[in-house]
């Protein structure tokens, strides 16, 4: 079936949709549902804050660093996908490893951020609701980052083995989409918390 032939077909759209990769599509739907969870939490935060008696405090500086670290890891993920597309396996291996290491680094800085909060007598439970919300939002994001790291690790291992190139590329693309999403989700949460302390 040639391109021109396809272009001539003037139906509602079956030719388009039939060629979409269902796995990618399902990933996007999963992302939507995760997004709805965080939408629930952040709107809950706003509703609670609007009720007053809200304690304001500084966000630990370290979350700026963690934001940078996650952004860098996302950039390397981008390189990894490009390398995978060009069948450039050595670059792929390096880029995806760096992504993974920076991902771990992000988790570490989040934990350091928590310990900064603890130094300021702000605990998950028992001190202040605003602090509980902060811990919850950051912690729940971190939980998703852990799931992202697992996915990343699988891609990492498979790219060191590169058994099936086509399958591998899809896997890396799926992994990249999820990883970029986690990055953007963090940016959203970071800005949200920054502007709604």
């Amino acid at each position, binding site marked *: 079936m040639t391109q021109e032939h396809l272009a001539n077909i003037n139906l509602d759209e079956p030719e388009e949709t*039939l060629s*979409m990769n*269902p796995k990618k599509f*399902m990933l996007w739907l999963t992302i939507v549902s*995760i997004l709805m969870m965080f939408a629930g939490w952040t709107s809950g935060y706003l509703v*609670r804050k609007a009720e007053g008696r809200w304690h304001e405090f500084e966000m630990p500086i370290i979350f700026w660093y963690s934001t940078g670290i996650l952004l860098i890891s996302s950039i390397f993920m981008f390189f990894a996908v490009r390398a995978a597309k060009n069948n450039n396996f050595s670059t792929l291996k390096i880029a995806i490893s760096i992504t993974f290491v920076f991902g771990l680094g992000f988790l570490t800085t989040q934990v350091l951020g928590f310990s900064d909060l603890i130094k300021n007598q702000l605990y998950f*439970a*028992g001190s202040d609701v605003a602090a509980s919300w902060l811990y*919850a939002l950051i912690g729940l994001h971190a939980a998703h980052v852990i799931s992202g790291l697992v996915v990343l690790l699988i891609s990492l291992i498979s790219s060191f083995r590169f058994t099936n190139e086509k399958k591998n590329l899809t896997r890396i693309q799926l992994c990249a989409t999820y990883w970029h999403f986690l990055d953007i989700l963090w940016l959203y949460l970071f800005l949200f918390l920054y502007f709604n302390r």
Partner: protein
Amino acid sequence: MATETLHAIDTHAHSHDEHEHHELGFVQKYIFSEDHKTIAKQYLISGIIWAFFGGAMSIIFRLQLGFPNMDLTWLKPVLGQWIVEGKLEKEFYLALVTMHGTIMVFFVLTAGLSGTFSNFLIPLQIGARDMASGFINMLSYWFFFVASVIMFASLFIETGPASGGWVIYPPLSALPQAMPGSGLGMTLWLSSMALFIVSQLMGGINYICTIINLRTRGMSFTKLPLTIWAFFFTAILGLLSFPVLLSAALLLIFDRSFGTSFYLSEIYIGGEALPNVGGSAILYQHLFWFLGHPEVYIVLLPALGITSEIIATNSRKPIFGYRAMIGSLMGITLLAFIVWAHHMFVTGMNPFLGSVFMFLTLIIAVPSAVKAFNYITTLWRGNIIFTPAMLFSIGLVSLFISGGLTGIILGNSALDINLHDTYFVVAHFHLVMGAASFFGLMAGVYHWFPKMFGRIMNKTAGYVHFWFTFVGVYCVFFPMHYIGLAGFPRRYYSFTALGNGRMEAFVDMNMFISIAAIITFTAQAIFTVNFIYSIFKGKRAPQNPWSSNTLEWTTPVVPGHGNWEGEIPAVYRWPYDYSKPGSTTDFIPQNVPYSATLESNFPEENEEIAKEKEIEGLLDIQNSSYNH
């Protein structure tokens, strides 16, 4: 059927499907099956079992309400220590109400209805070999199964299952010391529901992905049966709202297990202040009803879709207002997300905000009325064939209207402030959601039973079942309006102590309701027997028993793995060409091209003929989509 053979030439040449020809073991075939039809049957049977338990619970608390002085010692073998001196334990009454609600809303009418028919019909009606991911589909069922086991187990623990109502409002649900059911029972409830939500999300993602990606050649969105449209919007509702319930539940879990105070503030128990401060119990209600309201439509929309299909088929008429039906489904879906606060008019919300939500709520009546109107106009002057499925579908329309009318009353905040948490609300939602969706489920079972099991359910038993259920449901729920108007609150163990004898006047009515409930519940045995009997001994079904247009009836009587033996048929027309003027048959299936029906084509349809070659030409692309 003659027309079908016209285009069926040339469909057997392809070697399409590798997975069709190897035999699967018992476990893979019937237990951990990835076949959408088997998963659908698993959902159906689980749903029926749950419906039995949910129904039996309601009978027990109806006994308490209708016959408060009855000696219940005979229930001791089943309920054990929940019967104290011949009386139902008060705490257990609350547990029963809670479990009844949870089971019916989530396990029967969400999993049992959506799970069954979305799984069964989506691939068959859009022309796909299976779901986009059979594996995730299987996981979806087994998550549901584990959720079911946990919920069921919670019935047997010493402190009893969750008891704070199916909405599990904190602080009652957040504090283990608040009531016996808020201890381990609530923990199990939350674990079970978390798994349930994951299960529904996996299912929903699959439904959406399948409908968008795996339609057969020519099956454009405007040719989809309304069932599929309904399942599609249901899945979208679930995808957007279930995660929010999960987020609400997680915060509740934090409050229960880690001592946070998201929902708790300034609570005294036994005169002693709890350390929790700063939370907001109302916040939980917002999060819950953001799911809760869409959830009621998650329950109803599949039933409406099933009804559209059955009413059109058995009226032998095209559905009236196909696009309006889609539009109203879409309208309901959108509005469902912005009306949640009508469940919270009495939480002390700003009256202005209340009137905004009142306005939005009342708008829902418009798409709902469009649907009711279209069902009636489809029936109007049709050659109606009263199959049991058709009777249940018509029953659904009736229930949808009578329950919807009270929705309009409740939607007015000024009226709702009086009626909230009374039996009026119970009457409203049992008619419009409980009974209507149950009727949709039954209609679907009677109608698609031949496709599921290759046999037809006994008709006479179906009629008897219908009339008992239809009359029974009205006898049970209609009087509840009066009781509610009189001020009977929901979830009260005993009424007679209220209102200085004023409530005694309603003892008779409660008795009547309870008797009607027992009869209606017992009548469901007719269905159960018919169902089981027909699976093994029913009359064998022909390929297309209801002379229907949709694609599932072009498969073999009992479709195997992969659904169609040859190529999947292409689709050329919408699914509602019934009694088309000029046509020799009174129905023209979707896979019959316009070029084969020149005598009945409208002018614009003759123009479609030119495109039909191209629909055929898409075969290669379609096949390649099954190679991933």
